[in-house]
């Protein structure tokens, strides 16, 4: 297959699937007279998106803000912890099990505690999402900082490189592909963490996020709005993922196998 036809296929095929599925959905709802509070037609969802856009976009901003803040915290804190781990095996051995413990305990179980302990709800939500998102950053970056070409390490040692030189010139660049792999997972987890935490907190009012809109719409049987909120959450997730992929491409594009195109 020619490369440009593969390119068309990459975008064309999924788009075709979407058109077919949405068309069938629309037709099925219309033909069977399904009430919108059960399954709204795609056209109805789009209409709701336009009609409720102020409310929904405000909520999207809140949820996305929490997810982004959590992702930023996870990156800064997770990288710092990984750097600490590679400085001392003892530290890693002593603390890593607790990082795992935090990871395997479901956030819905921890969230109520965090929400009780932290006064500011927004801060509590960011904290919950950070707990969910931080693990892949820690584990991937630690792995990357340790996965150094042994030949290059010998070369650095032979040239009497200081620990700082070894870290900045060898370990950090070697860890970048691993870090971006972790970032890709963490970006999705940050959003999941934000939504789950909002559900648990159930905060309404001016600072209500998309999860609250879903909760409320469910109670009111406003299913079109529920779908509209769902569409926005999914779109936010795709955008976060896309941004992390783009960041990886910018950082690794010229040298790492994962970002290089195969020769035509």
């Amino acid at each position: 297959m020619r490369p440009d036809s593969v390119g068309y296929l990459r975008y064309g095929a999924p788009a075709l699937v979407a058109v077919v599925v949405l068309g069938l959905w629309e037709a099925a709802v219309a033909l069977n007279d399904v009430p919108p509070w059960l399954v709204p037609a795609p056209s109805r969802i789009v209409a709701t998106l336009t009609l409720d856009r102020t409310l929904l976009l405000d909520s999207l901003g809140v949820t996305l803000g929490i997810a982004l803040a959590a992702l930023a915290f996870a990156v800064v804190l997770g990288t710092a912890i990984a750097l600490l781990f590679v400085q001392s095996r003892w530290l890693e051995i002593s603390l890593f099990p607790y990082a795992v413990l935090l990871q395997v305990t479901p956030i819905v179980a921890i969230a109520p505690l965090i929400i009780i302990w932290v006064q500011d709800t927004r801060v509590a939500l960011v904290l919950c999402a950070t707990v969910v998102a931080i693990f892949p950053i820690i584990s991937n970056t630690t792995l990357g900082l340790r996965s150094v070409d042994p030949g290059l390490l010998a070369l650095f040692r032979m040239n009497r490189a200081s620990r700082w030189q070894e870290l900045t010139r060898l370990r950090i660049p070697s860890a970048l592909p691993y870090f971006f792999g972790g970032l890709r997972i963490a970006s999705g987890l940050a959003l999941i963490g934000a939504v789950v935490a909002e559900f648990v907190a159930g905060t309404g009012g001016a600072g209500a996020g998309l999860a609250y809109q879903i909760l409320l719409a469910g109670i009111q049987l406003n299913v079109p709005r529920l779908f509209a909120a769902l569409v926005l959450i999914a779109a936010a997730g795709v955008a976060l993922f896309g941004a992390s992929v783009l960041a990886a491409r910018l950082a690794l594009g010229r040298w790492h196998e994962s970002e290089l195109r195969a020769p035509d």
Partner: protein
Amino acid sequence: MTPPVVLARGIAKRFRDGTEALAPIDLAVCDGEFVTLVGPSGCGKTTLLNLIAGLIRPSAGSLGWWGAPRPDADRSRRFAYVFQSPTLMPWADIASNVRLPLDLAGTPRAEADRAVADALALVALDGFARHRPRELSGGMQMRASIARALVTQPALLLMDEPFAALDDFTRQRLDDELIALWRARGFAVVFVTHSVTEAVYLSTRVVVMGARPGRIVDEVAVPAPWPRGDDFRTSTGFAALARRVTKAVAAAASTDAP
């Protein structure tokens, strides 16, 4: 008399798991010599090279570099190591890779850049300073690795099967380029290979090693004059030397401890 570049007296290496990698060995490498270690795999060639590089410590015996007990005692006399693979930093361009030893030593940028340009010119990579390693062929990557070794003007070059992964034509060309550099610069070389013909072609002295445990079984001086070329490769003298080395390798293999 100046002390030898490397002087090993009865050095042996036993690894922590009990493997006896190297039986006690005596070896001296003098200024300007090109010494090749040849032998079957598992005979401790790389172990001996790593001992000489100071990467590992001997479990017995003593090692001296230019008469000093540490390889880095004399800052004006440095050694450089060329690995089996090019071992370049994939994220950095060729110039930055070659400049690495100077950067680590804190050499001023302008001075380092001049040295890098010289080193790249030596290995005919002038036009590739801004390329990434993966944009170069295997032979060119190896030349970049040699440029990185030469950039510090070493007095001793240690090479661990540097051309083993390359095709025959590229290997022969790099052999000739290496010889030209060695004759121009006058550093000493310890070169590991498992190719008998490469060993005889390159060296002033071939050290034949046997396995289990690693030991020196023969030393063959190669008195042929320079420059050597295809005439030397096809001469009877070359064939006789290669035969002698091959016989020594075979004899060592047949007397292996069970």
